[in-house]
């Protein structure tokens, strides 16, 4: 009897430990990737702030990336997708959820203008219907792939 109780409570302790880890997991969920390449003028727009982009900078959900006339930038996201932009381009990462364990998978970007190359990663493999790029003229859905868009409305 006591032994049974003991093993129950140690199980509860493990669960409590996992739950205690939850807030940091939630904070990490905002962090969706990292900037790997930067050329020329590139800005991360985060809420009201515009921050000059640098390699190794973390990208958060809802961030926009904006390149200048001489700019280009490359990003790797948590599901191993990559996105790169040419000059005079702008994209925002509207939604990004990568929790395969809980079945939460989603990647929605809004590509406003310029040129971009996309390589879809694990979300595109596990749940291609959850990947979407919205542009002012059309929306792109994917089946695990690499593609490029130019928008000059």
């Amino acid at each position, binding site marked *: 009897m006591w032994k049974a109780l003991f093993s129950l409570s140690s*199980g509860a302790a*493990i*669960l409590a430990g*996992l739950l205690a880890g939850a807030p940091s997991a939630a904070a*990490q969920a905002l962090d969706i*990737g*990292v900037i*790997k*390449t930067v*050329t020329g003028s590139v800005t991360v727009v985060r809420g009201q702030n515009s921050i000059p982009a640098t*390699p*190794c900078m973390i990208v958060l959900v809802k961030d926009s990336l904006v390149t200048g006339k001489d700019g*280009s*930038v*490359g*990003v*790797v996201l*948590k599901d*191993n997708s*990559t996105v*790169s*932009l*040419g*000059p005079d*381009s702008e994209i925002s990462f509207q939604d990004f959820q990568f929790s*395969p*364990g809980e079945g939460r998978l989603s990647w929605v970007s809004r590509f406003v203008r310029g*040129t*971009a*190359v996309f*390589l*879809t990663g694990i979300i*595109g493999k596990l749940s291609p219907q959850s990947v979407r790029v919205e*542009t*002012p*003229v*059309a*929306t*792109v*859905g*994917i*089946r*695990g*792939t*690499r*593609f*490029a*868009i*130019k*928008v*000059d*409305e």
Partner: protein
Amino acid sequence: MVLSLALCACSTAPKNVFLLLPNQDGSTGAITVENKAGSQVVSRPNDASYVKDAATAPTGPATMEKPDIDKVFGDALRAQPEPPLMFILYFDTGKDALTDESKKVLDSILPAIKSRRSTSISIVGHTDRVGRREDNFRLGFDRAGKTRDFLVESGIDASSVEVFSHGEDNPLIKTEDEVPEPRNRRVEVTVR
């Protein structure tokens, strides 16, 4: 400068281009380009669909020539990051001890992190289905944690490393419960 502006103004290059590229491994997927006027599937590499505006249907796919691809997308293509590298380490049953072969793989992760100057490394621990699901969740963490400790002790910044466990829920090889499967007792390290 004036000349190049003049050339741009004369150019009849399409304004909105949706181009399917081959994957680096030679395979190709497909894209669907859709707006309220219509929808188009592009499924051959280097085919593109063009869209005049939001009220006009996407065109049928047409091949985009290599020089045109480079002219339009060259800068964005050159800015593509290297794809992330994945390493798989295998473990002895029920333990957080690496198999002998996997110790060599572990050693090869360090140079990869350095050459990419990676600050984004994820470590995911997995188990087979022997034992209770909760215990396996914890065992997955132990295996991932052990791998993290090795990297940090070897000089990798701890803030660059994230640790997860999928326990027995994400097998490489699907099995019935309680079946030992060495290929599922693993840690996956992704270096971005």
